[in-house]
């Protein structure tokens, strides 16, 4: 119990402080997910390494997004969804009753497929997380956290003159970086990204990929992507999912140059999926 509060406080203080001895930030063991009668994940075990980018690849409907959404319990919002097995964050079971899902989501942030800024000002978008989690007390503190988050997301210079304009007025790529700024404003340890570039043009995609590479120094990143080039470019580890099973995982260059399983080989060479 003592350990847990310490971890929670470390999580508040900042991502760098929580870097423990272990190289594993999150780990799923024998994770099974059911949507009603239908089983979507069949016993997936995967360790997410700290301060690295792990990409989840696989054909549509293979369960990669489902696994990602288990990592911050976003599946809780779907009433018929049931999760079995254990998922840990810093060794602590995130499906344990004693763990508050609100605090978990402050520690494990999420960026969605379609940019979804709140229909509020750019400033309010970024300030929202710190405000509801009680991380800021004064206006100056809020401003500081908003500016530093926007800077980290590489958006500050583009929007510094219009922080009070609606976030929905930005371009798609800018909106997605705003969502990233919003997610890192709560200083999470892990950042989950669900196909963050699928709605963006190639230039905006390149900017986001560059950003992901920079963010890796501070955050543990898990990214779901349909683009194998993207997985190869941004990630250090890759996990290949097929039909709800984890087929293969390992260092990205190994997966792409020398896959062990035939299914992986078929997928990355474009024969399935």
């Amino acid at each position: 119990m003592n350990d847990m509060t310490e971890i929670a406080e470390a999580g508040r203080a900042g991502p760098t402080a929580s870097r423990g001895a272990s190289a594993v930030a999150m780990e799923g063991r024998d994770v099974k997910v059911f949507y009603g009668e239908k089983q979507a994940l069949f016993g997936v075990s995967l360790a997410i390494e700290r301060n690295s980018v792990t990409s989840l690849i696989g054909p549509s409907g293979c369960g990669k997004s489902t696994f990602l959404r288990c990592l911050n319990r976003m599946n809780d919002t779907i009433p018929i969804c049931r999760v079995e097995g254990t998922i840990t964050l810093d060794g602590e079971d995130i499906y344990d009753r004693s763990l508050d899902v609100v605090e978990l989501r402050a520690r494990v942030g999420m960026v969605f497929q379609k940019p979804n800024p709140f229909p509020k000002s750019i400033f309010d978008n970024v300030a929202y997380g710190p405000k509801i989690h009680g991380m800021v007390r004064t206006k100056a503190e809020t401003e500081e956290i908003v500016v530093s988050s926007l800077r980290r997301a590489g958006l500050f210079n583009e929007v510094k003159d219009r922080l009070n304009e609606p976030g929905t007025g930005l371009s798609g790529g800018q909106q997605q970086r705003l969502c990233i700024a919003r997610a890192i404003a709560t200083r999470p340890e892990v950042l989950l990204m669900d196909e963050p570039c699928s709605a963006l043009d190639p230039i905006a995609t390149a900017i986001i990929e560059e950003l992901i590479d920079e963010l890796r120094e501070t955050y543990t990143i898990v990214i779901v992507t349909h683009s194998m080039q993207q997985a190869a470019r941004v990630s250090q580890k890759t996990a290949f999912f097929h039909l709800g099973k984890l087929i293969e995982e390992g260092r990205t260059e190994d997966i792409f140059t020398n896959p062990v399983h035939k299914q992986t080989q078929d997928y990355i060479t474009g024969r399935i999926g």
Partner: protein
Amino acid sequence: MTDASLSRPASAQPYDRQRLRKRRAAADFRLRAYGIAAISAAIGMLGILLVTIFVGGYQAFVQTHIRVDFDIAADAVDPANPAAANWRAIVADGLDSLLPGVESPAQVRALGQLLTNNTQFFVRNAVVANPALIGGTLTLEVPAADIIDQLNKGVIRRDTASENRRVSDQQIAWFDQLVADGRVSTPFNWGLFTNPDSRFPEIAGLLNGMVGSLYVVAVCFLVSFPVGIGAAIYLEEFAPRNRWTDLIEVNINNLAAVPSIVFGLLGLAVFIQIFGIPRSAPLAGGLVIALMTLPTLIIVTRNALKAVPPSIREAAYGMGASPQQVIFHHVLPLAFPGILTGTIIGMAAALGETAPLLLIGMNAFITSPPGGVLDAATTLPTQIYIWADSPERGFVARTNAGIIVLLGFLLIMNALAIFLRQRLERRW
């Protein structure tokens, strides 16, 4: 089977194609013509309705007045108790000075019928309000009696045989004399808005109805808005999908289709018989109409909540917002314009509701506006109902005028709803 027969089946011959095209075009034309005919019919009926109402009602917006000089003699009125004076005699004297030489009692009575029956109270109230008038002359624009008003407006025709006419030849002569003396005027009828109901059409107004309607709609809003929004939020955001919530949903949808008179019976049985709310009280009326508005309000609110894009909810949950925070910070603000519009339209429907109010006695004859939600009252639609039932000729135009006023309020509320929707609706 040759290649030619494969690429061009019999039905696609050029001749057939042309016929097909013609038939398609004709069908399109027919459909469009039906549509235009339907719209024209609808607009035509609406036009007939509005024209009938306005033609029948515009006369009630003006009222014939006769200027009379009343001699408030110092010996006739006691300054310590002016209300106790013989005002009837003072009015008779005023008329006598206007048209001298009328002696026989029948003639005097016929002369008195020129002015509204309540003239003595107008004079009395003026003097009580301003005792300095005692000993001088008071000149008042007094509403003419209904028959004279109708004569002036041409509703009672002079060429009707005098035995079939409610105004005697003598009264017509007197009236013409007054017109010649420049004592007759026809100003805008403010009394229609400032007077309570009366047995005499010339001084009957909509004040009771408007105040009563205000109370009823206020009670209805205060009850149905929080309850409706709360129920909609629970059903849309929290309730699990199971047999019980399905049952509730079906019931809400059915409740919206229950005839309003049934709600009136329920109000009579529950609010008045069991809870003991006074009969005819706006509180009972407002509660009954709140029950009727609730299903609509719940459905409208649920639709507004449903229309909020799921990505916004997802974003908020992903930030670690609790369900309450997601709803109050994100979903409700986005749904608010829709909820507001639905509420205003629901209140407009409540304003026009009549049948259940008849059952709880809000069609009583009441001559003073209600001072609170427990006082007996009428509403605009029930006031129209009462007037439509009254035999005096002047109430025909007043019924129509009441409808025009009610339509005016409905129009204002609907315009407000459209304005707010366009003003508040945000794009995302």
